[in-house]
């Protein structure tokens, strides 16, 4: 399947002489700090490549200041990229003129912000309907659609409230509803839950998972929280100082970190929750009795613990009838003990 979004060699440099920086291979090769010292420019995004598949939940993760917000804003050109290409459904959106860009924003993608960005002088219903309003959708139609998404995000009954009368979690639901109202193909989230309390954050994460399942939209989700990334992401992109360090599924990151940076990052992750059997299995040894129970390679370790420990023979990891390897007590205990 063709990717919805395909980003190649994307650069964003803030400050004076940005275009000169990206034109010079020498300057491009400098680290962020060196570049800052030499030219006073900040390279927020440096040569980023990735693809997002249709219907995928793609998470971008990195520490604060690593360039995530800039990256996601480049995708919708809220921030004008300095160099590179961004193909959206086969169209290079860097070449879109102002009108085309507006059309894209109105119909194809929308965004949810960390600090909500609600209009304080409008009610919940009017905030949700804002995107439709600027497209010129008639009032009655707008009301109908707003109500639908308000119900969808669980805000029913709060239509007439003003944002400052709602809790943070509720406000972000409004932000979510506003983004959904236009029925976009892709949703961008820039750390939408960072400002919320942990309990509410968990609720909202489940909500997004539910929505993702129900409406099946492509989502690009920014976070600085690894557990959030692992919980939501089909695939995760790890950013550091504006560059991509690694892209992969959660178990790939934990199982095969690309470098020490990632390794350090994933060190405290409860591995049994993330790793699947394929990461811990070993080739069968001659002395293994190969008539134990069978499990698939994508089975998460934690779910396999009971079967492996209760079996007196190693568990076979089998895919399509082919034996990939075996997992015995010691492998399981190696993962579980490592967490303690």
């Amino acid at each position: 399947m063709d990717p919805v979004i395909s980003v190649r060699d994307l650069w964003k440099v803030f400050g004076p002489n940005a275009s000169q920086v990206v034109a010079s291979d020498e300057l491009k090769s400098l680290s962020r700090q060196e570049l800052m010292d030499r030219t006073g420019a900040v390279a927020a995004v440096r040569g980023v490549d990735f693809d997002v598949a249709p219907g995928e939940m793609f998470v971008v993760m990195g520490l604060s200041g690593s360039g995530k917000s800039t990256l996601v804003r480049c995708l919708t050109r809220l921030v004008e990229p300095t160099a590179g290409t961004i193909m959206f459904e086969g169209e290079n959106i860097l070449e879109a003129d102002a009108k085309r860009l507006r059309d894209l924003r109105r119909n194809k993608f929308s965004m949810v912000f960390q600090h909500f960005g609600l209009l304080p002088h409008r009610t919940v219903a009017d905030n949700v309907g804002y995107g439709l309003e600027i497209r010129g959708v008639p009032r009655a139609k707008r009301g109908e659609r707003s109500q639908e998404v308000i119900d969808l995000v669980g805000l029913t009954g709060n239509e007439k409230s003003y944002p400052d009368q709602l809790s943070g979690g509720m406000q972000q639901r409004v932000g979510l509803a506003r983004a959904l109202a236009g029925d976009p193909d892709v949703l961008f989230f820039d750390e939408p839950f960072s400002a919320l309390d942990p309990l509410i954050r968990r609720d909202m994460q489940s909500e997004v998972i539910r929505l993702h399942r129900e409406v099946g939209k492509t989502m690009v989700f920014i976070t600085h929280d690894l557990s959030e990334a692992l919980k939501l992401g089909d695939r995760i992109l790890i950013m550091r100082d504006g560059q991509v360090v690694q892209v992969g599924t959660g178990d790939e990151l934990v199982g095969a970190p690309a470098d020490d940076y990632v390794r350090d990052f994933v060190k405290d992750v409860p591995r049994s929750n993330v790793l699947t059997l394929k990461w811990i299995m070993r080739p069968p040894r001659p002395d293994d009795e190969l008539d134990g129970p069978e499990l698939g390679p994508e089975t998460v370790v934690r779910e396999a613990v009971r079967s492996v420990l209760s079996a007196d023979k190693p568990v076979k990891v089998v895919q399509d009838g082919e034996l990939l390897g075996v997992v015995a007590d010691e492998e399981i205990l190696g993962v579980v003990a490592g967490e303690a």
Partner: protein
Amino acid sequence: MVAVPAPRQVPLFFDRYKRLVIVGGIVLAWLVLWLVFRNFGTLPLDASELTPLHRWVNSVNDAIGASRNSNPVFLYFFNEIRLVIDEFVTFIQALIAQPSFGRPVPMIGWLGVVGIAGFVSLAVAGWRVALLAIAGFVFLGLQGLWQESMDTLSLTLAAVVISLLIGIPLGIWAGLSDRANRVLTPVLDFMQTMPTFVYLAPLTLFFLIGPASATIATLIYAAPPAIRITAHAIRSVPRTTVEASESLGATRQQTLVKVLLPSSRKTIVLGINQTIMAALSMVTIAALIDAPGLGKTVVKALQTLDVGTAFNAGLAIVVLAIVLDRVTTAATERRSLPRWALFSGLGVTGVSVYFSYTYLWAAEFPTDVEIGSSIRQGATAVTEWVQDSLPVITGGFKDFVTFALINPLQALLAESPWFLVALVIVALSFMIGGLKSAVVSAVCLGLLVATGLWQDSMITLASTLVATIMVMVLGVVVGVWMGRSRRADRAIRPILDAAQVMPAFVYLVPFLALFAASRFTAIIAAVVFAAPVAIKIIADGVRAVSPATVEASTALGSSSWQTIVKVQLPMARGALTLAANQGLIYVLSMVVVGGLVGAGALGYDVVAGFSQGQLYGKGLAAGVAIVVLGVMLDRLTQAAAKRWTN
């Protein structure tokens, strides 16, 4: 808790206090050089002396005046503007103030105006404020000043409406574009600090004597706050909100109309409030070019030192100001009035307007009930008592402050060679704000020399600094008190409002008796005008310190004094620097008034330039010098604020 080895302590101390040491060094060097060079190169200019520049300005002014009746720019451009504004003001006056349309009374009499004032206040500000508005307007009538008040109100409304028509679009522009902001800021500084006296006479040349000139004089001073605050409001809309709108595909226009403007409404209304207050503070000055209304009453009464009458009229201005202030302030809150209240309010208003149109009793304010004469007598009695019993004490106080503070500072500034003072100021600017500040100060000082009024500028600068110090002392003492006690705040705030809009000359008469014609009197006048702003800013700043922090401090066993000094004031330092900055600007705007009561120097130069044709050029130069001083001090305090708050 290991003792630090002694040798390391010295550089540490020096590092920490390096700036202080350098500043101290500069000042010390200045003192020494002052002793050596005293009264050398001070660039003095006698009161009647002129420089070639001043003469040149005179000749330009004369040439413009002479060509007035033949110049097409006058005949078409200015004339058209004048006609439109005259029409507008006259129309409002015809509605509420002046006999019109062949009637012996205005279209809407007092009852109708009171009704409308009450209804508008009810609709935008709630019923409490509506009651205040009604009471306030009736009070104006009881003072025996109905018509004068309505004239003043007409002119103020006209000036405010035009200010907003110009100011809000300009403010939006400056809010959206950094370049526009950079261009507009100095222009606005100029409009706000250039003394009105300087442009009053030329205005009547351009727009003739009448409502147009008075309105334009008022709006030159009143429009800048609307522009600045609108720009500020637009700039302070959270970035995310704008981004959210853009991300949904809004056009610039849509974002402006649906996001930026509605989000800044509250702040813009505050700008309108400031514009109204500024317009009201121009009432007396505009009276000097025949602006109708309360200002005339004040000016007239003061010709015979009739403080009672002047106070009564000044009080009417204060009442108008307080009503308009409370209505606009309350208008920033979201409220929805029940429909029935709106409709019945509308009904009552309609009926009262109709009555006031038809019946004499509702048209002209009845003269049989009035309190104006008691107010006049009371004010006169108080003034007389003050003048009779206090001068012994106040005279001594004046002498003390003059000899201990004003004279030394003035000697240092005005009796040093100009290049020495300039060097010191540039060096201090560099210490405060780096190269940029130093350059700004150098340019400003150069301009001061060019005006030919260096020594007068230094004398004015000395008084300005003393006044600002007093403003800050008052600001901190009263501001902290108000910030800590709601009750004090409620009691003091109306007094501050009154001090800000009461025409200065009303209280200057007794001040002259207390302190004689002197620089000190001028300083006190400036303090009365400027302290309220500083106090309010500091009070709000202290109140804004998070209660949690104050609680924490109390929990650690701090005394009130420790909490104030170690927690509240340091945390309110943003407010403190803002107060100092605004205090300075307000003090400078009183320089001319100071010139009327013995300050001499720039203030007197401006006043004399307004009064005598051959001194016009010099007055203009003095006006420019005041503006330049203002810009320099403003930029310096801002730089200092930045350094301090970071």
